[in-house]
């Protein structure tokens, strides 16, 4: 990622550009130029956007030392978006914006050769389809608006400066043999833990060159690479409770992942944690001081703070088909205090590194071709803004470059980039634990609790998550995977089977203290509950840099459960 960043804002004379050598870009530009001639029912498009993700993907999956699957593919994913009408009222943000009843001739994935004619042919057909779909949607939306009054009075689309950013593609040869060997070897670590009944290791190297061109003069090509390795293990505790843990290592490039030795140590920690959880006692319901240490604090903030700053536009519907989109915890709270006044939060996706390490939350432009800048989210505890896209929402009517993945009905999904949580009053980390114990003493608690890891992103099966969240209402914070009782003498005891109760965005107002050291937590955001890793769909790298956080009063309760009985047959031998 040493490419030179060329960022020329609007107004460049595109017409005089020399013949483009990049065949993909040339086909996109030439075909988008023709789109202005589209005219049916006297409604030409006012906005046309093409994007193409030109990707090479490698995936390997192993379990207990054996290869389970491997895939190596080249794919080109196109997206064509057309808006008809005007920014104030167009085809987007209607329940039927994505509906299309005609036939589709353009492929879902584009041909892989750099063949100018064929790429233009594909964009031609896609443009025609998108245009007809937009016309139909606008007509349906106008009909709906005759019957419902739109109280929000928001425009459908906002302006954004044109961006010209042409970075060279970065594609390295993937050493598949090395990845296979690495996956086999790491997955075999679990063989030494007979209590682990399910385990695997998978690695993905995704190398994509993202293109985006629109009729406002934006022209973008940049490398959007990602590599990650996951190791997961699960076991059944004596009472039938399923316990599990996940290693989720990610980096922009395969070579930037932790070294093999570091990964071995990290996989071993997963195995050790699962082993420890099997033996650990079930925790008891608790209400009192809790310290979220290191990664756990950042995981808590990802769920209660940054995810709640994604506010989506409510689409227009018909009176007989009301849409029920639950209101987020922080919706409507701009200008209100949501954190202690000694805490500031900034999201800065333009920052490439933090303390010498590449940040996963870095991106030069979002999915709408908008370049992000440092965005103050919370100042002195007061909420300033949400993540914004080109689709206006109440309070954020223009984009701030956070439309990171394509969303429904013409929108982009607003998501975090790199979140920096900065406390102006800090406590040295060692002091924080003393403070925690002191709070326990004052309240005559036999022990206090420290959380070191949450199940986020979660590696649990959907049915297991359902079991864990049973009986809870609303959006929940994921359960702790590493939670300890801390006794007065400082002794720690791991417990399992606890979940949080009523922990949400409001809880953050009651942060008592923050540490002087910062931890970076990084994950792939996919928008799924608990960011469950098997959920599929688009993912974007996200970074949260935060201190450890101390709370005076957090509630934990036992997960109510009838757990499935352990397997009837004994486990087969691990080695023969």
């Amino acid at each position, binding site marked *: 990622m040493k490419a030179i960043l060329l960022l020329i804002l609007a107004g460049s004379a595109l017409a005089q550009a020399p013949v483009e050598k990049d065949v993909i870009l040339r086909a996109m530009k*030439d075909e988008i130029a023709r789109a202005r001639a589209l005219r049916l029912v006297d409604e030409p498009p006012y906005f046309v956007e093409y994007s193409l993700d030109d990707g090479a993907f490698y995936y390997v999956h192993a379990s207990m030392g054996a290869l389970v699957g491997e895939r190596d593919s080249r794919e080109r994913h196109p997206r064509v978006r057309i808006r008809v009408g005007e920014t104030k009222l167009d085809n987007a943000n209607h329940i039927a914006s994505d509906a299309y*009843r005609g036939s589709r001739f353009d492929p879902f994935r*584009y041909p*892989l050769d750099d063949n100018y*004619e064929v790429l233009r042919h594909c964009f031609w057909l896609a443009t025609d389809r998108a245009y007809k779909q937009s016309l139909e949607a606008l007509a349906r939306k106008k009909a709906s608006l005759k019957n419902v009054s739109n109280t929000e009075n928001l425009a459908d689309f906002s302006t954004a400066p044109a961006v010209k950013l042409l970075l060279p593609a970065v594609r390295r040869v993937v050493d598949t043999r090395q990845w296979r060997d690495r996956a086999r070897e790491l997955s075999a670590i679990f063989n030494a833990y007979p209590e682990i*009944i399910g385990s695997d290791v998978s690695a993905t190297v995704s190398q994509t060159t993202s293109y985006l061109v629109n009729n406002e003069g934006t022209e973008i090509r940049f490398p959007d690479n990602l590599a990650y390795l996951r190791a997961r293990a699960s076991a059944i505790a004596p009472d039938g409770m399923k316990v599990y843990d996940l290693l989720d290592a990610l980096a922009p490039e395969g070579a930037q992942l932790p070294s093999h030795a570091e990964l071995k140590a990290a996989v071993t920690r997963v195995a050790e944690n699962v082993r420890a959880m099997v033996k650990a006692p079930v925790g008891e319901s608790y209400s009192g001081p809790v310290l979220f240490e290191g990664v756990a604090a950042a995981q808590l903030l990802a769920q209660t703070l940054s995810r709640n700053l994604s506010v989506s536009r409510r689409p227009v519907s018909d009176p007989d088909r009301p849409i029920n989109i639950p209101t987020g915890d922080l919706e409507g709270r701009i200008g209100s205090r949501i954190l202690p006044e000694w805490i500031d939060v900034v999201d800065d996706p333009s920052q490439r590194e933090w303390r010498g390490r590449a940040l996963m939350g870095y991106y030069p432009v979002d999915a709408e071709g908008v370049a992000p800048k440092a965005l103050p989210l919370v100042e002195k505890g007061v909420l300033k803004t949400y993540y914004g896209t080109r689709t206006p929402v109440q309070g954020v009517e223009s984009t701030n470059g956070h439309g990171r993945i394509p969303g429904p009905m013409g929108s982009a999904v607003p998501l975090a980039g790199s979140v920096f949580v900065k406390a102006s009053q800090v406590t040295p980390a060692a002091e924080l634990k003393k403070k925690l114990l002191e709070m326990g003493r004052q309240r005559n608690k036999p022990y206090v609790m420290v959380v070191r890891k949450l199940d986020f992103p979660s590696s649990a099966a959907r049915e297991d998550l359902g079991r864990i969240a049973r009986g809870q209402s609303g959006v929940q914070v994921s359960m702790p995977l590493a939670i300890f009782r801390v006794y007065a003498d400082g002794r720690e005891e791991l417990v399992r089977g606890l979940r949080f109760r009523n922990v949400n965005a409001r809880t953050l107002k009651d942060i008592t203290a923050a540490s002087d050291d910062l931890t970076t937590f990084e994950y792939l955001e996919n928008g799924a509950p608990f960011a469950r890793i098997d959920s599929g769909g688009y993912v974007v790298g996200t970074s949260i840099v935060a201190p450890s956080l101390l709370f005076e009063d957090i509630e934990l309760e036992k997960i109510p459960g009838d757990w499935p009985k352990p397997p009837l*047959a004994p486990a087969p031998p691990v080695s023969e």
Partner: protein
Amino acid sequence: MRYAGCVFPKVPALSVICLLLATAVGASGAGQSALLEILADELKRNFEALKKADPAPYYLAYEVTEEDAEAVAATFGSLQSANSNRSRNLDVTIRVGSPKLDNYHRMQGDFAQFTAGIAIPLEDNAAAIKRRIWLETDRVYRLASQRLIRLKTNTQVKAAEEDTSDDFSLEEPSDFVQSAGKLAFNRNEWSAKVRKWSAEFSKHRGVLSSSVTALASQQMRYIVNTEGTRIQHGRGFARILIGAFGKAGDGMDLSATDSFEAESPDRLPKDEQVAAAVETVGKRLTDLLRAPPVDPYVGPAILSGSSAGVFFHEIFGHRIEGHRQKDEAEGQTFTKSVDKGVLPEFLSVVFDPTRKNMASTDLNGWYAFDDEGVKARPVKVVEDGILRTFLMSRSPVRGFPKSNGHGRRQPGAEVVSRQSNLIVESKKMVPEEKLRAMLVEETKKQGKPYGLYFQQVTGGFTTTGRRGLQAFTVIPLVVYRVYPDGRPDELVRGVNIVGTPLASFAKIIATSDRHEVFNGICGAESGSVPVSAVSPALLVSEIEIQRKAAGIDSPPTLPRPTGAGGGQ
């Protein structure tokens, strides 16, 4: 609604990768894979442990489907995809209760689905594979035992059912081991070929989208069960699919397709033959785009051999699948027709999965053992117009207590009885020219302005459920009007055949003397399975057609981009 949705993807569908014909048939024991031993060990271990459970299983089987597949596709001279895939999927079958009543017993509104076709390691690492088998066996056992308990307390099951046959048949165990074949597919060579072939479509301006796909796979199946069956057998399969798609001026979507199938890539037709077929497909689509749309019509017609094959597969084959005779939700068209006339007496129908080819054409529906480990055999279902039997899996129906080797599935689905190679035999064969003369004669006799000739059809779907219409639709691609006054045949577009199955059978007058093969993939409850239908051309006195719906969108608004690569 239960249905037998049968799709013959003559249109390129990369997702459906099919199988293969095995080359060598080894003696038992030769080239046995370590996997078979691993499966057998774990089968024994799990069965012994589960036998102590309540309810206890009386039967346990593992089937592993191992596939090595390659596919390349191109459009207008550009490579569209190049994929390879290796997989091993495990299907677990557990029967708890007794053959008289077990967890597979049919109950309306409660489909018996236990297996999930989970992925297991591609390498013969015993510990890793056994771990997966163990957990999956436990999962399937729980589902099986729960369903049996539900069944036993269900009044519907207690109430008198019409068919009181058992849930499972007793069969002889099989012991057969064949060494695994190697997939021979040169990706670079085939990529160059599909690029070259697909470039042809650039010449046809009416072609909006098109593709030429080449795919090949090698598949091995490993089956062990607690009756002592141990099978390791395989197939190879190769295919070229050609498709071109366009839109007529009135918005009707049209397509032209062709395909070639063989047991291995080297048995596919020569390059020149494929290139010629691509050219024909391009021309045919261009002709179709100019052809007049049909009007609704009832009258005589000839169905070419391949079209007739689809016709039989849909309107007949699906209705003699054994499990449909027992399912209360099914229409049961033929359930009570055994030993009665169901077709004209000059026709017989045999399903023969042991047949590998017909003349020089490899047959898709070939296999040595079905997915319940029962040896394949020819089954004469209709003799001189009289229905004699059904296609049977190990799920008995009244009067048919045994399997005849037609229990089939795709990995991850439960086995039901399915078709194999359907072969129509005729005693009233006439040369093709004579059949055409008979059509003209019949047209005149009925006072119709023209007859129809169905040259190519693309498959169809059938509803066999009791609540659905007992009707079928096949989708014709190439249909001509044949005029009695000697005018040249006229290509028409937008034809849909409609009708009720029983009525159609009675209207076959004669057949040609030349068999044609239709190779396809049939999809139904137990997933996609490769099949063939072989038939001579049929003359029918009456067929009913409709015009298919025109598309709701118009052809593209802007002209096709001019290809000149200059930049503007």
